[in-house]
């Protein structure tokens, strides 16, 4: 086969990766932007979403789309609830101290992983796609579901953008992000905003996981890569910037897809991680961010 | 008189804000100089440029005839420029002794491995001078505010600097403490040059032989206390912004 079809395939795969990554990273970015803490357990919320999607979809008999749609609602809600609980029980008591929060969320990471291993098991399990359509492209047929994932992610990101920039909730969140004390003085319940943002961040990861799980099987260790990639995206995109996050997700997703087709995925990850570490060292405001003065 | 510090067209901009704009300044050995000016006049930025906490946008700084513009802060301290912070900056979880010992240790390290006896003697001397010798074992964070300021000054003294920069040293002190402070600075000035930023006019008039007035990042006037008191532009600047007496 010639270069063309390979490249198209790699780009499409990259777009799917980018779509899911943008959603996951958006959650991490939101939490970091508003609360100024790094949630290391973010990848585990993603994994939890995928595992729950498997559980819900197998609980529903009949057409796979019924189970999928149910999972699309149930999984994020359960994950959001779990995040809310951990925020109330742990993070709030730590006063959102950045370093203590990282240590605590590492603890959460291990707990969630172990619970998944105990109750779900060490196997990777597939979830059936809600529909099975092949769309004929010039050189090959392509999964209609994967294209749906891309569209769904775009819709969700637009919705998030609308909420953040055009609604009162978004205003409250941005005010809290800008200046916690002043927001408090203006009667914004900062405490509740934090809890809500933490839950929302986890829910975004869970939605992304539900979308990806018919393509990638659910496994209790599947949270590692999304965590690392989300970090990379958030750092490159500039912390707390929605636009930067989306652009960086596209960049990383596409290059990951393309490089993985032509090179070893391990080498690709190695280079990407090293490069991003360098970005953080030499340009901590991200490639698209503005220096803080 | 020989100049200890000289700045030439020293400038620092923060984005569009001209915090310090083309300042030519000269400080002679053995002087006590006060810098005054309304809030936001660029006083702290200016002394921060001299001690190296902030890098200049342009211009040059000369210390003892040597250009130190490119020298990092810690090297300037070793060359003899000590800075005491406007907002008290000590080690609250260490004892008063250990706080000052860090200064003495730094000075002794330049001459080789510090001996414990020399360390003890150096700390004792500095604490004696500021009158905190009986508090040596107290955690610095547990001291009253006025005493914390004295720890800060003791740390500066213990470096045995040629130039001691004091950034609003009397802020938050009681009247009695201010008097003790004035006596202390006179005593310090016998072997070091003192540059202080001060809002308390009583302290300025008592201590300074010359005064530099800054406004909007520039030097507005310079002269003896009497000259400054009589200066029309200075009166306008203070009345104009309605700040500090």
């Amino acid at each position, binding site marked *: 086969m010639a270069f063309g079809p390979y490249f198209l395939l790699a780009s499409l795969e990259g777009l799917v990766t980018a779509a899911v990554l943008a959603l996951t990273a958006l959650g991490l970015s939101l939490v970091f932007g508003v609360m100024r803490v*790094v949630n290391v357990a973010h990848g585990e919320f993603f994994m939890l979403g995928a595992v729950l999607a498997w559980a819900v979809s197998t609980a529903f008999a009949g057409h796979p789309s019924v189970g999928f749609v149910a999972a699309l609602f149930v999984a994020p809600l359960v994950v959001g609830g779990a995040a809310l609980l951990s925020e109330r029980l*742990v993070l709030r008591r*730590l006063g959102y101290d*950045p*370093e*203590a929060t*990282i*240590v*605590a969320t590492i*603890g*959460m*990471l*291990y*707990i*969630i*992983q*172990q619970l998944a*291993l*105990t109750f779900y098991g060490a196997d990777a399990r597939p979830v059936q796609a809600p529909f099975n359509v092949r769309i004929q492209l010039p050189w090959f047929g392509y999964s209609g579901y994967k294209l749906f994932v891309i569209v769904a992610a775009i819709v969700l990101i637009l919705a998030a953008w609308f909420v953040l920039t055009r609604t009162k909730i978004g205003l409250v969140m941005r005010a809290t992000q800008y200046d916690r004390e002043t927001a408090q003085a203006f009667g914004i319940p900062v405490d509740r905003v934090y809890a809500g943002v933490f839950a929302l961040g986890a829910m975004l990861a869970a939605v992304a996981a539900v979308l990806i799980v018919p393509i990638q099987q659910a496994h209790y260790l599947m949270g590692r890569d999304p965590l*690392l990639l989300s*970090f990379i995206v958030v*750092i490159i995109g500039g912390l707390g910037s929605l636009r930067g996050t989306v652009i960086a997700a596209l960049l990383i997703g596409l290059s990951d897809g393309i490089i993985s087709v032509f090179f*070893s995925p*391990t080498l690709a*990850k*190695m280079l990407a*991680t*090293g490069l*991003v*570490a*360098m970005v*953080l*060292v*030499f340009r*901590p405001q991200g490639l698209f961010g503005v220096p803080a003065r | 008189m020989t100049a200890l510090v000289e700045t030439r067209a020293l400038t620092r901009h923060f984005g569009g804000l001209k915090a310090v704009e083309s300042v030519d300044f000269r400080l002679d050995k053995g002087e006590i100089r006060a810098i005054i000016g309304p809030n936001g006049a660029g006083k702290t930025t200016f002394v921060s440029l001299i001690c190296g*906490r902030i890098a200049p946008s342009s211009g040059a700084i000369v210390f003892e005839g040597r250009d130190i513009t490119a020298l990092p*802060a*810690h*090297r300037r*301290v*070793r060359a003899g420029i000590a*800075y005491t*912070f406007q907002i008290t*900056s*000590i*080690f*609250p*979880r*260490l004892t008063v002794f*250990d706080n000052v*010992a*860090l200064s003495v*240790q*730094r*000075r002794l*390290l330049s001459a080789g491995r*510090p001996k*414990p006896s020399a360390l003890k003697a150096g700390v004792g001397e500095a604490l004696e001078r500021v009158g905190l010798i009986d508090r040596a074992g107290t955690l610095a964070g547990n001291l009253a505010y006025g005493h914390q300021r004295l720890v800060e000054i003791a*740390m500066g003294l213990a*470096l045995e600097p040629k130039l001691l920069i004091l950034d609003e040293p009397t802020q938050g002190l009681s009247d009695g403490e201010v008097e003790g402070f004035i006596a202390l600075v006179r005593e310090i000035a016998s072997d070091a040059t003192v540059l202080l930023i001060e809002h308390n006019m009583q302290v300025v008039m008592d201590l300074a032989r010359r005064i530099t007035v800054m406004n909007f990042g520039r030097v507005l006037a310079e002269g003896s206390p009497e000259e400054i008191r009589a200066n029309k532009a200075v009166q306008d600047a203070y009345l104009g912004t309605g700040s500090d007496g």
Partner: protein
Amino acid sequence: MTITTRDWALHLGVIAILLAANFLLPEYHRGVFSRVLVLAVFAMGYNLLFGYTGLLSLGHAMFFAAGLYGAGLPLYHLGWSVPVSFGTGLMAGIAVAAVVGVLALRTTGVAFMIVTMMFAQVFYLGTLYFTTWTRGEEGLVLSQAMRSVEFGGWSLNLSDPSTRYMLALALFAVVLLAMLWLVRSPFGRTLVAIRENEERMRMLGYDVFRAKLTAVVVSGVFCAAAGAAYGLLFGYVGSGFASIQYSILPLLWVLLGGAATTLGPLLGTLFMFYIIDYSSGVTSAYLLVVGVTLILLVLFFPKGLLGSVRERWLGWLP
């Protein structure tokens, strides 16, 4: 400020007790202790940076693994002797720590944590990528023959439990006393003061960057020594030791035992080993124990065992 008789008595006493343990402990527990002693060296190296200097790294597995591979690869592939391999392990640790230090120390706080984690991840992926030499996760088994030490007709069998214990203890004792000396030295005081107030230290004339870089390198060397010893004593070199989990474990051990205490790392490592050992009799949920311990520590016990002892009763503890 100098090392007091009391300090000497405490530390030499601990070493003496551990020496006696070689002859008193049942076989199984002597094996556990051998591992704990080597890993406690890892924890002490971590503690120098995290506890005393206040730099929280999430990438120390990289230094441990640098020692592990630095010693294991030449031994396995080139047939170098055990002492020389131990030396190359230390060299690898110095090199990696110096490079990572120069780069990562440009950042602070959360960025420092993430950068160290990412460099460690690159190192880990590297051990997987160069699988021809490392055999990735499967790892290299260093046979007993490779690990025999001979000097002039006298030979040392590193798989003999007693020899292994004594060598582990020797390394532990050297690093423990080095830590004690360091902590009581002007340099140790400099590091603690940087942790407390970095800007003030700079304005007292200290070269903060150089002090922190030295701390990273010394910490890296201790961790590499632990890694090299671990590979040579227990005969296995695998990429699992470079994974993020081995960056988290020393943090956990130090937090548990007490950050910025000389003996806390030993105590934390020992406790954690036995907590997992006993709980594994009840449940296989090893990760759960680690996770819950971490959260409980940061929530209710941030000073750890010895940190709390020092705060309440023994203010002089180094």
